[in-house]
């Protein structure tokens, strides 16, 4: 029987001689993985090799020809994506990316260093696809594909949020996020996905949104918001659904419709649209802005995304407006046009209120709501009483996708500062293009693997705590639906006392609407700060 270890032995584990990373396999203990995809969810969209299995079991029931599937999968992708071939060949292992990943910073697990994460795939590429690797083996950083490698992939590629922070620091611009995307595609070919993603994809494909909420319930939720808005402001608004001939189709992540605190952001959008008299409609068919297909395969992302243009065409709108979301905007901004365009049946978006033409969206025909609102404010079209948000000492989290995927930095800050009087930035090395991920992106925002999310979110939370201590920050704003939910949890663990807000919730609070009664509470039903008069202040 093993003797009890001394504290010094428990503390010094890693000082003992260790095996190299290629020989260290993953120990799947309970609570250290996301639930595997259920067969029915994979089958629902035609993915192959769905089965019931568990990472805890030795036998993952891989299909008999699994090696061939992976080899062919890699070969096909090397041909299709020139970037992948480059990423596989050019890394010089300089280590500049090594300590830039939030998962590495939070866990200290070397395989969470971006360079090593991509080496998990690259070593197989070398060992199985390059001559040097085949001859020199380990000397060339090459190894052979085994079941243990596949298990390691599952473990570590579902511990990367595809946030791209590492790529900002790589002298060659190697994007580990794209390597993760390819690796997840390969895993998906073997039926090895996680259910949080597979379930959302299946629901989205069949019902229109991640939760599988049917059209009548979707409408019902919006009606619920209409009542709440009336209770707060006295103004009754009338959104329309699936209305043909509207000028604008508005699409937002379903988290805004169903999950707190995103729901308050949804109310903010609706209030704004009403106030400016926007001719818009909501779709119960394209009722999901998010696209978890992106975390399974490029093809699935395309299939889910195609609903946006299809619905815009069916309804005959002129252009599209998109809500506050992270990965939705990665899909829209980076891929939609190539995947499902050209959207030549739509017009270049033009604000009906200010006349501004959004040239930057001239090919996708979809405008970001924050950009749209910033333009309204810049042109003095909104009456805002920022004092209503005076109870909030605000900071802002740049979502990975909008910042590194779109370079979208100024507009959110402009809008926030127009509706909040107290605003403080987090330290420079933790915002804008260097922003730290929430730790829950790319389909990893499930509750079963919450420990990983908490350690991955530590660098972000650490920066929030800094501004909390220095400036008394008590509110964190963001423009991403996953953030609204995940950061709430993150704050509760690391920085209690900080609440999370979508930017349009703040807009909704500050917006002075025609015919409104005196507001006593904010959209959350909390009493408004002070009793300042509303008249013409901060216009």
């Amino acid at each position, binding site marked *: 029987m093993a003797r009890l*270890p001394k*504290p*010094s032995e*428990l*503390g*010094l*584990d*890693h*000082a003992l001689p*260790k095996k190299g990373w290629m020989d260290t396999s993953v120990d799947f*203990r309970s609570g*250290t993985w996301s639930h595997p995809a259920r067969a029915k969810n994979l089958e629902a969209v035609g993915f192959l090799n769905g089965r019931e299995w568990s990472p805890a079991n030795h036998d993952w029931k891989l299909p008999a020809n699994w090696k061939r599937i992976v080899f062919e999968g890699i070969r096909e992708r090397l041909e299709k994506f020139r970037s992948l071939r480059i990423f596989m060949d050019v890394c010089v292992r300089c280590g500049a990316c*090594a*300590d830039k990943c939030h998962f*590495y*910073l*939070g*866990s*200290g*697990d*070397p395989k969470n*260093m971006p360079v090593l994460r991509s080496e998990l795939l690259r070593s197989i590429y070398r060992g199985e696809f390059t001559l040097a690797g085949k001859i020199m083996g380990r000397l060339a950083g090459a190894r052979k594909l085994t079941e243990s490698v596949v298990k390691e992939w599952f473990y570590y590629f579902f511990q990367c949020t595809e946030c791209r922070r590492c790529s900002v620091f790589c002298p060659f611009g190697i994007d580990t996020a794209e390597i993760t995307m390819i690796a997840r595609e390969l895993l998906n070919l073997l039926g090895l996905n996680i259910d949080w993603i597979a379930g959302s994809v299946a629901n989205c494909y069949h019902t229109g949104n991640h*939760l599988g*909420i049917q059209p009548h*319930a979707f409408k*019902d*939720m919006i009606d*619920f918001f209409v009542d709440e808005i009336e*209770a*707060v402001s006295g103004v009754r608004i009338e959104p329309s659904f699936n209305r043909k001939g509207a000028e604008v189709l508005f699409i937002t992540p379903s988290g805004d419709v*169903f*999950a*707190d*605190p995103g*729901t308050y952001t949804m109310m903010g959008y609706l209030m704004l649209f009403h106030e400016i008299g926007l001719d818009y409609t909501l779709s119960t068919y394209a009722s999901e802005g998010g696209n978890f297909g992106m975390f399974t395969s490029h093809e699935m992302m395309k299939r889910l995304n195609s609903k946006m243009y299809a619905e815009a065409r069916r309804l005959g709108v002129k252009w599209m407006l998109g809500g506050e979301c992270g990965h939705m905007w990665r899909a829209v901004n980076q891929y939609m046009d190539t995947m499902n365009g050209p959207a030549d049946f739509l017009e270049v978006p033009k604000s009906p209120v200010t006349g501004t033409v959004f040239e930057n969206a001239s090919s996708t025909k979809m405008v970001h709501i924050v950009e749209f609102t910033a333009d309204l404010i810049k042109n003095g079209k909104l009456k805002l009483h920022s004092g209503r948000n005076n109870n909030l000492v605000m900071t802002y989290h740049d979502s990975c996708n909008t910042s590194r995927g779109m370079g979208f930095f100024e507009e959110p800050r402009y809008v926030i500062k127009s509706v909040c009087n107290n605003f403080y930035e987090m*330290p420079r*090395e*933790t915002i804008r293009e260097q922003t730290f991920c929430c730790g829950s992106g790319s389909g990893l925002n499930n*509750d079963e693997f*919450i*420990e*990983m999310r*908490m*350690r991955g979110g*530590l*660098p972000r939370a*650490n*920066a929030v705590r*800094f501004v909390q201590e220095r400036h008394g920050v008590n509110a964190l704003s963001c423009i991403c639906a996953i953030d609204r*939910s995940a950061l*709430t*949890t993150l704050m*509760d*663990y*690391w920085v209690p006392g900080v609440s999370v807000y979508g930017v349009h919730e703040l807009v909704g609070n500050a917006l002075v609407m025609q015919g409104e009664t005196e507001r*006593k*509470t904010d959209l959350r*039903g909390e009493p408004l700060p002070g009793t300042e008069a509303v008249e013409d202040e901060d216009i």
Partner: protein
Amino acid sequence: MSIENLLLPRKKELLESWFDLFTRAYAPEAAAMLKRESNRFANPVGQTTLSSMADILDEFFGENRMDEILLPLDRIIRIRAVQDLAPSRALAFVFLLKDLARRFMDTDTTQGKVELSDLAEFDARVDGLALAAMDVYSKCRETLHEIRINEIKNRTNRLLLRARVIVEVPGCRSESLDH
């Protein structure tokens, strides 16, 4: 002479050794990073731990006030509690203080400056710290369970309300709106 008094002039050295031992629980690459990077935002685990250990030692060699020690202890343990470690491993760093103290007092002990009773007293203080660490650890784990449940609730609460699976106490919300 009490051990605290003997160690006090060498507090900085003690802190460095304690932190060094702490980092050795991580893989060599990670240990090097934890020690090298001095920017607190680029190295949250290393810098949070180092500064919290300093706070703990200050208090430990000072008045040893519970409240003042709990905060820095919480800072370190909150991290350890989500690093995929068994509780024993997560908290081992506290006990290392005993080994360290003995190593630092090697000559003092042999010169007879330290009595057995001094050692026992010092060990008891470390044990007190360790017990507090256990409380903090279990609190962190409790929080983890709570936030997990809250998140699930937030995700679907609205739907359940709407489907009238949950019924709020009548009048509650409108009351808060009316006054």
